[in-house]
């Protein structure tokens, strides 16, 4: 019924994006002085270019463009009215609430994990283990994750039943905990934390020991060092990661689809418009919603790259 959304994985940043951005900048400046002959090496780029065009660019353009046609194929702006529809406005609100809360929660918890990891040896077993665990868990989403949470805190989940029989505590006393839009924050945070560890750890590792020593020499306490030096230096990377986490949650589909059958967030509303068998002739509205999501994503990613540029300043 539902497939794992491709955008889920697209927004996941490669490992150590911060340091690679810095390295990339250095390489470019070193090369720019020299003129190089074009080489056949560029041909190697072709398969990737083909992939991007075929599976990203063309579908994105078609999806958004479909929002500007009627069901009969006549050009129109009328579909844009959907963005004022209270149901759809509510879906966007739901998406924002879930994405912002899970991004902030994930970022704070993830940053604390990174902070704790700083005290361990960089090439030690613990750091390596957590690093690989984070890589795996950041990809643990979709139906499997939804099922894991259903089995844990669903109506018949083992934690739910244990709390009920042992302490008489009903997790679902005030309505379903898991099967609601706010409830999505719980599984979303689950994959946001490891993603935060992956993206934020390189920035943490970039903190130079010499800065701390210099501060200590000048009489700063550890508290001063963190609040006056480390945190300001880390801030752009931190907020950049928050944006990335936001984008990741905003575009997630499969987990939500497995838990909620009544919509409430934008990706589920798009599915509703595309596959409805009761309200027919609205599939072009989905294109308008895709446009809305795209605008949000472009803004977020633009802000992300700005912050990354600031973050990279400290890592040269």
């Amino acid at each position: 019924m539902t497939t794992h959304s491709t955008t889920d994985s697209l927004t996941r940043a490669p490992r150590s994006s911060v340091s690679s951005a810095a390295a990339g900048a250095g390489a470019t400046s070193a090369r720019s002085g020299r003129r190089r002959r074009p080489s056949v090496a560029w041909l190697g780029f072709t398969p990737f270019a083909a992939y991007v065009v075929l599976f990203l660019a063309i579908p994105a353009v078609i999806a958004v463009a479909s929002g500007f046609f009627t069901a009969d194929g006549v050009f129109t702006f009328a579909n844009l009215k959907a963005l004022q529809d209270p149901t759809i406005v509510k879906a966007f609100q739901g998406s924002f609430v879930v994405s912002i809360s899970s991004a902030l929660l994930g970022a704070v918890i993830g940053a604390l994990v990174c902070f704790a990891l700083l005290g361990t040896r960089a090439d030690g077993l613990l750091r390596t283990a957590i690093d690989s665990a984070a890589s795996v868990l950041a990809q643990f989403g979709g139906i499997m994750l939804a099922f894991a949470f259903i089995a844990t805190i669903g109506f018949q989940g083992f934690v739910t039943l244990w709390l009920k029989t042992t302490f008489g505590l009903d997790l679902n006393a005030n309505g379903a905990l898991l099967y609601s839009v706010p409830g999505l924050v719980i599984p979303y945070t689950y994959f946001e934390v490891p993603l935060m560890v992956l993206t934020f750890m390189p920035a943490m590792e970039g903190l130079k020991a010499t800065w701390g020593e210099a501060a200590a020499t000048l009489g700063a306490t550890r508290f001063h060092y963190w609040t006056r030096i480390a945190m300001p230096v880390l801030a752009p990377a931190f907020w950049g990661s928050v944006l990335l986490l936001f984008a990741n949650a905003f575009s997630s589909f499969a987990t939500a689809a497995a838990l909620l059958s009544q919509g409430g967030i934008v990706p589920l509303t798009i599915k509703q418009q595309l596959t409805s068998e009761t309200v027919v002739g609205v599939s072009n509205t989905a294109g308008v919603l895709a446009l809305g999501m795209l605008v949000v994503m472009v803004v977020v990613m633009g802000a992300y790259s700005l912050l990354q540029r600031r973050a990279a300043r400290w890592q040269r």
Partner: protein
Amino acid sequence: MKRNRIVAGLAFTAAVAVVLTGCSSSSTAGSGSTADTKAATATSAADLGGMDALVKAANAEGKLNVITLPPSWANYGKIIAGFEKKYPGIKITSANPNGSSADEVAAAKSLKGQSTAPDVFDLGTAVLSQNTDLLAPYKVSNWADIPTDFKDASGKWFYDYTGLMSIGYDSSVIKTAPTSVSDLLSSEYKNKVAIKGDPTQANEAASAVYLAALGTGGSASNIQPGIDFFKDLKSKGNFISTLPTQATVNSGETPVVIQWSYNNLAWGSAGGSAGNPNWKTVVLPGTALGSYYNQAINKDAPHPAAARLWEEYLYTPEVQNLYLASGAYPATLSAMQKAGTVDSATLKTVGEPPSDFVQLTSDQAASAAKLLTAGWAKAVN
């Protein structure tokens, strides 16, 4: 640097060109089986020279594509297996079993001209009435057995089966059977009542709202009381937005489900070892609600003869009895009762069909859709 960019751009363009030409050549190659055009325009088996000729043409095609037929829905698992047994030369490909009627139409449009396009449809009425231009007229041999108001005069579509909206419940959790929809509002049902998806999306979920409307003073023309009922149910904390499946029913996650009787029955003891023995099905007293699905053949069916043979097969008494065994009432039921071809033991367990039940006309469904679009999300979110 600049030069490099130009080369990169060229590589990009080359890639697009390579990929696009690749696409177009493969799609022309995909149109494959151009059987005989005679089958594609035949409006009855007689047009092709009788059933034997139809079977021969279908065997020559060797394949049949069906779409959105879940094995546990109206006995489709057994029906498909029976066809493959009866016509071993024809292989059935069953696509997207959990999809919606809209998915069927989308597949027919996007796969048009390819050998993987669906051959036959099983459509809800709202989607059907929007897409009659996709359908090929065909009349099965026992066309006369299908009541006149159950079929399109030209043969573009014809009813296949209907269930009645029913309440399924786990009798180990809910001790007394519900006797009206209002019973669901009591505290015994807290966090327990589920429907099959979003009513603005799935016909079966919408039918649960229609049922609630009929039970709370509404009518087929005015389903607003049904929406208000679910709003009430939600505010009492009884409505859950979990999508019920056989698995959630077996685990106890969704102890009460409003859905078609044939699905509730299939999830109970009738479902054999996969079913939940405690799962009981109630069709509420009072006005019953049904909704026939429609059979139709894709105008651009890649296997036109097999598609027609499939329709012939579906309307044989053996398959109509299979629908009945799942708890769905087949379209030719009354003709079968007259002819004595109905499986009377099965009919006894399923129960006689009600002499009349409400079925929304396409106009009523359209106005219901308007109310649902405007009010549903507000009522339950």
